[in-house]
């Protein structure tokens, strides 16, 4: 047992006792504890197992800097993997487990790997598991190196996205963030102050040094009171800025540590202040990853904030004044400091508890027991606090694309003052202690002046004072494979050296080869030490090595938070037609097509879907069938230049279309590729209705707008997508006219008055109606459109009116059977991103057109004119019992090469055989040829024929 609860101190409520389990061991904590502080206080020593080598690891940090204590918590719906124990709030009944260990973190069998660690150097996996290929080994290796498992159930938590605009966003509520916010709050700025912690104050929460001659707690309370009481100020705790993006947008993950409601807020700020503090660096020596060795800042935070001592006998290592000040503060808190190892004193120096030199090696089996120093002598201790110097936390600043510079005086990568898209203040700007408070205030003045809230006082910015220590590299004559640089990803000095030996000189390459800094801590604690190790090894300066690019997110963000409310049915709202309920009552089987819920077939009790489709396709040609065609795209194009505009859009001639007439229209992209098709109707001289395929309505609408606005703005034309305003019923079959007449149509719909491809604007029982005599089934058909809001009763009215006319509802599947029988193409089935009009039999139609139109020139490309292009043909099986499998390849026997495929096929109930359409190389000139269809090992012999298998003269249409 090493860590324990100090008798006094800390911002915890000792009256509240909370019980939880950590890696199978019961732990006790208080309100205000994190899982990490409670476990440390309860004597837990092993907090995790290292990523690659499964070495036992203790706590190294106390917040987002933690690299070792990664845990899975909860079970079932509440299961969450890979949390930092330092970021988990201590709650009753909490059950935390160490993920990549078996049977437990304390006794992990895979720790035997450490015996083979010499083989597990950087690049080991790439070099070793390459035969026969990496993917064979990958699953096993991933499991061994694994983090926690992904949750299996649906995340029950709620996530919201928020947006806000402010004058100033201050990130970080430590010393500088608070003084800066105070100035801005008093100046009347619209201010948002965020901090990732659940308690505001940063270092003042544990560091007992006075701030500007005040006690930290009193100073903090007074400053926060001023900020909170300002009228235009908002303060958010548990709010971590995870990324800075373009034009001053910052994404903030607001995730209370034990709550189930999360928000992801995008803040747009005119000015951003990054008061994000600094992160301490570990020291490099042998076995520096033993449990019991942690950052000095963490040791101080555990003692000051949580009242927990990191050990019974605590040693401090580092150098200079900061080291001794820290020791004095810890003394004050009651921590038993037994040794202070000061590198500024010579090796071998001893003076009471002060020892000269550095730590050469840590000793202990699964936990620290003693230290061997560079001079003579050993120090017995169960905890070592490393004071390795502070690194300004400039991750967010780097998200803006800015590049930090290495400052050899401060031994850190720092941001330039001034030329920044965001202000840095306090420790993040290399100013610490009272200077941080002063710097925050100065930045506050500067921002207030930039926002014209108050004049800038004539005072220089305080100088940089960061307690920067020279980076202490690993002492000489240590074994580099025992010195850890990146604790999270198990990268050692030896790995960096071998990367350098193998020619990885760029720091970005070293990062990827060794995985240094690629863990979820983003190299917070490892980055600077790694750069220093490399510069030492290669004999160049740290400035020349440079640093890797930090990228968002600053900390892991839940996928649920990114999705927000855009999930399940809200991801893409489903549309239902006016007749959805009526069809549901008739046994409709609904499927989703391009965000429309549509009936695929109407099953009778005891009937299979396949049988229903066959029955419907057969019956429609006998009696009359009702089809809900409401989702068909309908775009009104109006204005004096409407005809001219559409003539430039369609691949065929449209300007000659007379009012009252309909015409099939084909659209190409500018690349000459078939884009959409449908019926174009002219309602009057200056009003057209452009019909599109159901899935493409929106796309075609925006496309028309784009052509009008960008290419031909001089045309006096407008367009409106009215797809959802009209409910459309397609009445198909020989009895269609009789049925429609019974519905109370106002006007003559006889074959003479309303022939095929004509339209009638009229009324049905007092409602405006548009009747188009067009057909996709090959039967006599009227597409009847009524205003969607007034259409509801029409479905049942038609069913009632057709009771003696063999009326039936039918779905999309039956319509598809009928259109394949007729050889009508379906965009997306016969066509793909290569299809030009000539491929589907519309070459002549386009050629005949005199005017230019979208894509016209592209149909003259040599490739579009190639004779061996795939062309649409019909197929029939030579043995009528054979089916024509969709997607089967048409293979040339001699070359064994695919020449095309079956693009649509169906069993035809009317013809009693399968009918099929295919896209086949040079297909149109091969009529009558026998071909082999290859399908999953089967071969079927088929004959190429005309696409139209039923009523080629179109007699049924003309009834």
């Amino acid at each position, binding site marked *: 047992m090493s860590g324990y609860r100090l008798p006094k101190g800390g911002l915890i409520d000792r009256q509240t006792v909370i019980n939880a389990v950590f890696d199978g061991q019961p732990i006790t904590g208080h309100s205000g504890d994190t899982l990490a502080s409670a476990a440390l206080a309860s004597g837990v020593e092993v907090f995790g197992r290292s990523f690659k080598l499964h070495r036992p690891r203790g706590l190294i940090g106390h917040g987002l800097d933690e690299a070792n204590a990664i845990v899975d918590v909860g079970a079932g719906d509440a299961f969450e993997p890979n949390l930092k124990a330092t970021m988990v709030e201590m709650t009753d009944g909490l059950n935390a487990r160490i993920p990549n260990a078996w049977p437990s973190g304390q006794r992990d069998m895979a720790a035997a790997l450490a015996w083979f660690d010499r083989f597990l150097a950087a690049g080991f996996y790439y070099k070793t598991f390459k035969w026969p290929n990496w993917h064979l080994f990958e699953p096993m290796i991933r499991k061994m190196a694994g983090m926690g498992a992904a949750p299996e159930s649906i995340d029950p938590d709620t996530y919201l996205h928020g947006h806000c605009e402010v004058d100033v966003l201050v990130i970080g509520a430590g010393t500088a963030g608070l003084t800066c916010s105070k100035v801005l709050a008093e100046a009347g700025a619209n201010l948002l102050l965020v901090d990732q912690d659940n308690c505001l104050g940063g270092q003042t929460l544990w560091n007992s040094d006075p701030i500007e001659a005040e006690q930290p707690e009193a100073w903090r309370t007074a400053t926060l009171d001023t900020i909170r009481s300002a009228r235009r100020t908002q303060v958010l705790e548990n709010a971590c800025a995870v990324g800075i*993006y*373009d034009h001053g947008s910052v994404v903030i993950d607001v995730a209370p540590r034990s709550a189930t409601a999360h928000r992801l807020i*995008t803040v*747009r700020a005119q000015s951003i202040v990054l008061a994000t503090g600094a992160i301490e660096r570990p020291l490099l020596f042998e076995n520096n990853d033993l449990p019991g060795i942690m950052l000095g800042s963490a040791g101080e935070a555990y003692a000051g904030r949580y009242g927990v001592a990191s050990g019974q006998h605590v040693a401090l290592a580092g150098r200079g004044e900061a080291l001794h000040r820290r020791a004095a503060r810890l003394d004050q808190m009651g921590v038993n400091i037994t040794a202070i190892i000061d590198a500024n004193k010579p090796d071998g120096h001893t003076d009471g508890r002060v020892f000269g030199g550095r730590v050469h090696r840590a000793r202990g089996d699964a936990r620290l027991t003693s230290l061997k120093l560079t001079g003579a002598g050993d120090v017995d201790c169960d905890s070592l606090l490393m004071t390795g110097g502070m690194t300004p936390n400039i991750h967010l600043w780097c998200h803006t694309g800015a590049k930090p510079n290495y400052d050899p005086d401060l031994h850190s990568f720092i941001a330039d003052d001034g030329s920044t898209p965001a202000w840095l203040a306090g420790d993040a700007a290399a100013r610490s202690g009272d200077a941080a408070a002063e710097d925050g205030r100065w930045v506050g003045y500067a921002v207030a002046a930039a926002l014209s809230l108050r004049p800038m006082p004539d005072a220089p910015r305080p100088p940089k004072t960061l307690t920067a220590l020279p980076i202490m590299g690993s002492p000489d004559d240590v074994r580099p494979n025992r010195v850890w640089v990146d604790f999270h990803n198990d990268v050692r000095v030896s790995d960096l050296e071998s990367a350098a030996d193998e020619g990885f000189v760029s720091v970005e390459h070293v990062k990827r080869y060794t995985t240094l800094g690629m863990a979820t801590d983003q190299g917070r604690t490892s980055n600077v030490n790694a750069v220093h190790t490399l510069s030492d090894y290669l004999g160049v300066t740290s400035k020349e090595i440079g640093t890797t690019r930090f990228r968002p997110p600053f900390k892991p963000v839940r996928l649920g938070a990114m999705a927000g409310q855009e999930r399940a049915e809200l991801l893409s709202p489903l549309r239902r037609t006016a007749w959805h309920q009526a069809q549901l009552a008739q046994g409709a089987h609904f499927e989703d097509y391009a965000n429309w819920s549509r009936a695929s077939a109407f099953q009778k009790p005891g009937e299979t879907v396949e049988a229903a489709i066959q029955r419907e396709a057969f019956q429609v040609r006998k009696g009359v069938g009702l089809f809900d065609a409401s989702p068909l795209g309908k775009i009104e194009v109006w204005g004096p230049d409407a005809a001219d505009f559409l003539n430039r859009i369609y691949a065929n001639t449209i300007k000659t279309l007379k009012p009252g007439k309909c015409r099939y229209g084909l659209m190409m992209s500018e690349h000459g590729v078939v884009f959409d098709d449908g019926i174009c109707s002219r309602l009057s001289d200056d009003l057209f209705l452009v019909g599109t395929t159901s899935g493409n309505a929106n796309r075609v609408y*925006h496309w028309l707008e784009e052509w009008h606005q*960008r*290419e031909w703005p001089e045309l006096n034309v407008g367009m409106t997508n009215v797809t959802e305003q009209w409910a459309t019923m397609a009445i198909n079959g020989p009895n269609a006219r009789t049925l429609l007449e019974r519905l109370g149509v106002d006007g003559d719909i006889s074959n003479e008055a309303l022939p095929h491809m004509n339209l009638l604007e009229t009324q049905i029982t007092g409602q405006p109606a548009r009747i188009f005599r067009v057909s996709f089934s090959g039967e006599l058909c009227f597409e009847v459109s009524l205003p969607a809001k007034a259409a509801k009763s029409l479905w049942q009215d038609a069913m009632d009116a057709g009771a003696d006319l063999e009326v039936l509802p039918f779905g999309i599947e039956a319509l598809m059977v009928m259109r394949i029988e007729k050889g009508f193409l379906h965009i997306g089935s016969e066509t793909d991103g290569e299809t030009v009009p000539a491929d589907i039999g519309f070459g002549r139609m386009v050629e005949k057109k005199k005017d*230019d139109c979208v894509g016209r020139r592209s149909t003259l*490309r040599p490739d579009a004119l190639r004779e061996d292009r795939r062309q649409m043909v019909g197929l029939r099986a030579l043995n009528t019992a054979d089916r024509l499998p969709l997607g089967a390849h048409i293979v040339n026997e001699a070359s064994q090469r695919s020449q095309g495929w079956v693009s649509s096929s169906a069993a035809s109930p009317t013809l009693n055989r399968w009918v099929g359409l295919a896209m086949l190389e040079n297909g149109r000139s091969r009529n009558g040829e026998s071909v082999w269809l290859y399908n999953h090992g089967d071969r079927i012999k088929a004959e190429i024929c005309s696409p139209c298998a039923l009523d080629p003269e179109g007699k049924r249409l003309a009834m």
Partner: protein
Amino acid sequence: MMKITCPYCGPRPETEFRWGGQAVTPRPGPHDQVSDEDWSAYLFHRDNPKGEMHEAWCHEAGCGAWFTLRRDTLTHAIETDPKA
């Protein structure tokens, strides 16, 4: 996320807009008088500057208007052209 100023609606977040590529790409024509080279240049060849670029954007989730703006591809600095 960029903040883009629609000439009709004012500043709005990038997610409301659709990018339409390089703004000015004169369309050669009529179709029977355009060489393969000119047509392929119109279809496929675009400037790819490191720096200022004239781009077409559509306020698709807003007023639906197409407009042009100048965007620096390096810094994302944006200037919207006045209503055309």
